[in-house]
Structures are given as structure tokens and as C-alpha cells.
């Protein structure tokens, strides 16, 4: 999938703005910037899970801070995506405890099943396999994160089922 020239349509809906204002209210009136991380999560979730520069500028406007203050944060934290991602991005924990319980073999299986290399998006834009660092699920390895949720104690079979569930649109990415 060609992703270099994708323009992002920006929709700050009323419901989203209500949630943003609620988040801003969690901090003292002169500390609006503190709401940046929670607000970015909400905005990203509502915009196909990525944050274009234009969208980041919009967030800066809402929080009354400079665009660079948003940009430097977005590029620091791994959960913010500056490029479009697949609809279903499988983030496999690849750190020691999961590696001990076979995540490397499982990732190879996932890649070959989907016909992609690590990081690539399938041609239909649906799936992507990436390796991430420790997700705090060490006792339930191997596992992956999909949207807001963890899928743990995975096997090849349960991964196959997960793919089928995604295709059948049975998977909720965000709990809103």
C-alpha cells in the first residue's frame, strides 16, 4: 500500500470535543498542556490511528500550545503513529519473557501467513505485524496488543482465529 501521500481528513466531532474538554478539566486551568498525551490518544483513535502533521497542528490549537510542542511529544512516544497503519496492527511483545515462550517463531508464522515482512502492511490495508518492547504481560506469553486490548497465551491456532475474527469484523479496537 502506498502511504507516502495520504492526506488525513480531520474531523473533530462534538463528542470528541466533549471528551477533550473533559480531559483538559483534569488539570489546573493554566496547565492545559498537561492534557496533551490523553488528548492525542483520543484524537488518534478517532482518526484511523495515526496523527498527520496537520492533525498535530489542530491539537496544538486546541491546547493553545506551539505545534513543535506537540510534534516533539508525538515523535518521542511509541504509541503515536506519524504514518498510516493497517486497520489491524498486531503488536507482538518481543522482549525476553515472550521470546522465551516462542514469540519469535509466532511472529515468523504471522508474517508468512499474511505474506508480509515485519512492519509491512498487507495490500488490502488490513493487517500489519510489528515487534514492540515489553507490554507487561510476561506471565501470559506469547501475546500481542491489538488496539486497546491484549490477546494473550497465543498459539498458531488462536492467532488464526484472531485473523478470522478481524476479517469478520468481530474485533473492537477501541472501547469508547
Amino acid at each position: 500500500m502506498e502511504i507516502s501521500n495520504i492526506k488525513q481528513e480531520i474531523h473533530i466531532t462534538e463528542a470528541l470535543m466533549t471528551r477533550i474538554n473533559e480531559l483538559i478539566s483534569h488539570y489546573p486551568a493554566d496547565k492545559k498542556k498537561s492534557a496533551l498525551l490523553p488528548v492525542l490518544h483520543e484524537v488518534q483513535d478517532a482518526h484511523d490511528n495515526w496523527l498527520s502533521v496537520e492533525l498535530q497542528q489542530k491539537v496544538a490549537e486546541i491546547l493553545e500550545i506551539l505545534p513543535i510542542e506537540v510534534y516533539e511529544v508525538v515523535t518521542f512516544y511509541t504509541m503515536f503513529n506519524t504514518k498510516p497503519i493497517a486497520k489491524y496492527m498486531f503488536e507482538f511483545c518481543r522482549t525476553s519473557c515472550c521470546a522465551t515462550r516462542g514469540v519469535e517463531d509466532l511472529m515468523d508464522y504471522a508474517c508468512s501467513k499474511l505474506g508480509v515482512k515485519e512492519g509491512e502492511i498487507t495490500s488490502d490495508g488490513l493487517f500489519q505485524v510489528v515487534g514492540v518492547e515489553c507490554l507487561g504481560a510476561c506471565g501470559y506469553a506469547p501475546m500481542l496488543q491489538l488496539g486497546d486490548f491484549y490477546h494473550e497465551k497465543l498459539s498458531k491456532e488462536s492467532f488464526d482465529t484472531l485473523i478470522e475474527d478481524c476479517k469478520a469484523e468481530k474485533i473492537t479496537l477501541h472501547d469508547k
Partner: protein
Amino acid sequence: MGKKILLDKINIPGIKTYEVYRENGGYKSVEKALTMQPDDITDEVKASGLRGRGGAGFPMGMKWSFIDKKSGNPRYLVCNADESEPGTFKDRYLMEYIPHLLIEGMITSSFALGANLSYIYIRGEYMWIYKILEKAIKEAYAAGWLGKNIKGSGYDLELYVHVGAGAYICGEETALLESLEGKRGNPRIKPPFPAISGLWANPTVVNNVESIAAVPWIVMNSGAEYAKIGLERSTGTKLISASGHIKNPGVYEIEMGITVEEFMNSDEYCGGMIDDRPLKALVPGGSSVPILPAHLIYKTAAGTDRLMTYESLSDGGFVSGSMLGSGGFIVYNDTTCIVRNTWNFSRFYHHESCGQCTPCREGTGWLEKILWRIENGQGREEDIDLLWNIQSKIEGNTICPLGDAASWPVAAAIRHFREEFEYHVRFPEKIKDRNHFVIEPFSKVQHLVSKQTV
């Protein structure tokens, strides 16, 4: 069965909800605390000997007593729920299954510190737990435990959850505060310490989830009673996250002082090794602490039983001991490649280094690259000493402890498993498959290394 004070009610159906939690004695510590002098609560926590459960083990009561109450500036309590130390998943368990315990602890502790605004900083990946906590906080507000004039005491407290976005470094308390201020998670130079200048430059205490969750019990039963649990300076209970090659991975609350052997082999806890394969190594306190080889796990170098306490796990210093750390108990059997595992940890630290300090930013990258080439059969004999050299130059030369945390696993791996590194360098054709020790455990080929000298 050891004493349980955090997870004693975990099996009560519906304990996640406010009603059931309250029916089972929940929020009683708030009622009691509101009739006490705040400083008396701090004294109880001091008397309990409770040590910070995030990893550093600093006495919690002492940390509280450092908070600046004289300046008159607003004070804050921030709960560190940015659990990201590889091998650690205990705070998550507690927040997911008994969220009101943390909220109760936050209220009681905030009252002791005189904080009227407090936050729980949770890692972004725990998004569903963020929602659980938000819901539980709403319930607590509705029941009058939060907000203005709590239960007619005149004490006000606002409590919110703040969500991170994927950065291990934000578990370091000053990086966490930066992140809470909406910035990159770059640790601050100390002093000033957060107790004087923390969140928005005001006095702040940052405590781990498990530490705060222990406060209600201490308030209800006294610090002296808490200090009776456990062994010597390792008072109380500890949540241990057990993972790796064991039969029953999971979160266990132990009374400190049980032997490592019991924790490892008893059916109440880990249940022994999966497939009954030999135990090769143990990381007892999260990825940052030194790895222990099999002969130093159940016994210290002095031949005494190794216990699950701060003191016993560090017995022998870094030469023959390790640390309790965050209680991330990772068990490895004989199919594990120590070189590959050390490379895996180094990749983690390289990825998570914030980049402020040169020794850490550059050094972690060097460690990762050199370990990768050894693991892939391109290592040189002198690489092992080079690794030692680099890690020794990171340690102690950075603003925050991430640099130390990146160095210690490498140093310990070389100290205890040097022959495995030599094997990788000298027999590259035998390690081509990444599962080389699954195919042929190191114990079967070790003789090849000892026969060869350079």
C-alpha cells in the same frame, strides 16, 4: 499459605465493583484516616518499614516525610502505574482485579500528605485498565469518597488518571512528572527532588501502585503490625510476577522471607520447571537486575538459603547476588541462550533510552550491536572485553538509572556465563539456528569451549 494483605479479597466475586468492595470492608481506612492527624499516618507508614515496591526499595515513610509542607505550595501525590520493567506485571493485576484498593490507598495517602489533587499515571498500553480505573473513580466520587468535603471532614481531593503513550523511561519518577506535564519523558537532574520541586515545580510524592495499595492495611492495623510480617528489614508482603519456563506463571503475593526454592517449586506458587527441564538461570527482580546462574539461585555463595527478601537476594553484591527490584521473577531453563537473551535486553534498553545522556544513548546502541554480532556468529574474541568496557562506562555516568539498568544485565551475563559468549565466538557454525540451545543445550557442548584456549 503465607499472609496476604493485598490480594486477600481477590477471589470474592464482584470485588471489582464498588458495592462488593465496600461490603467487604473497603474504604474503612479512609474513614479512620480522616479522624487522624496526617503526620500520624506518615509515622505509621514509617513504622511499617514498607519499602517502595517499584524497584528501588526506598523506605516509603521517609519519602513522605521529605515532602515540603512549609512553603505552603500545593502538594501532589502521583501514583506510578507506568509498569514497564520487563518481567513485571503485578500492578496491572492489582488495578485490573481490585481497582478500588488503589483508589482507597490514594485517598488515605493523599490525606496524609495534604494533597488536594492527585494523579494515577498509567502506561498507555494498559488502555483497558485506564478505563477500569476511570469507572472506579467515578463510583468513588458518587459515593462521596472524592471531591469536596469528603464525608464531612473538610478535606477535599480530586483524583484523575493520566495515560502515558509507550515509554519505559516514564517509570523514572522525574520523567514521569515531565510526561504528566505534557512533555517528552526526559528525566530531570536531581536535586531538587520531587518532594521539594516536582509536578509543576510543586512538592510531589511519587509512589508505586503496590506501595500505595498497602497503605489502607497499615492505617487499619498499624505500622507495627505490618512490620511483624516478613523478615527483618524486608517487612510485609510482596507481589511477585513470575514468568518464563515455569509451570504456573502469574502474580503471587508472598510473605517476604520464604525461600527462593519454595517459591520456585511449591504448587502454591511457580510449581517447578515446565516439562521438568533443568533450571539454568534466574532474573529475580525485573530485567535490570543481575542474572543469577543455577548454582547461586537456591543458595548464596556463602552456602545459606537464598530467601525472597531485599537482603538475601542481594547477598554477595553483584559478584554472586542480584536484587529483589520490582519482583519480576523470570526463570530460564537449559534451552535458553544467555547471549541471545542479553542481546534482547540490550535492544530493549537501546530502544527505551531517552537520548539525553551520551553514555546511555550511544552505549546502549553499541551493546545491542555487539551482542547481535556475537549471537549471529560474527563476534570476535575481543568483543567480550569490549562489552565489559562499554557497560562499565555507562554505569554511574547518566542522569537517571536507566544507564545502570542497561549495564547490569550485560555485566552479570559475562560474569556468570562467559563460556557461552566464547562458544558463540569460536563455533559460529553451531549457532546458526536461533534456537541453537533448544536443539542442543549448552551443557552438551560446553566441553568444546573448555578444551580450547586462545
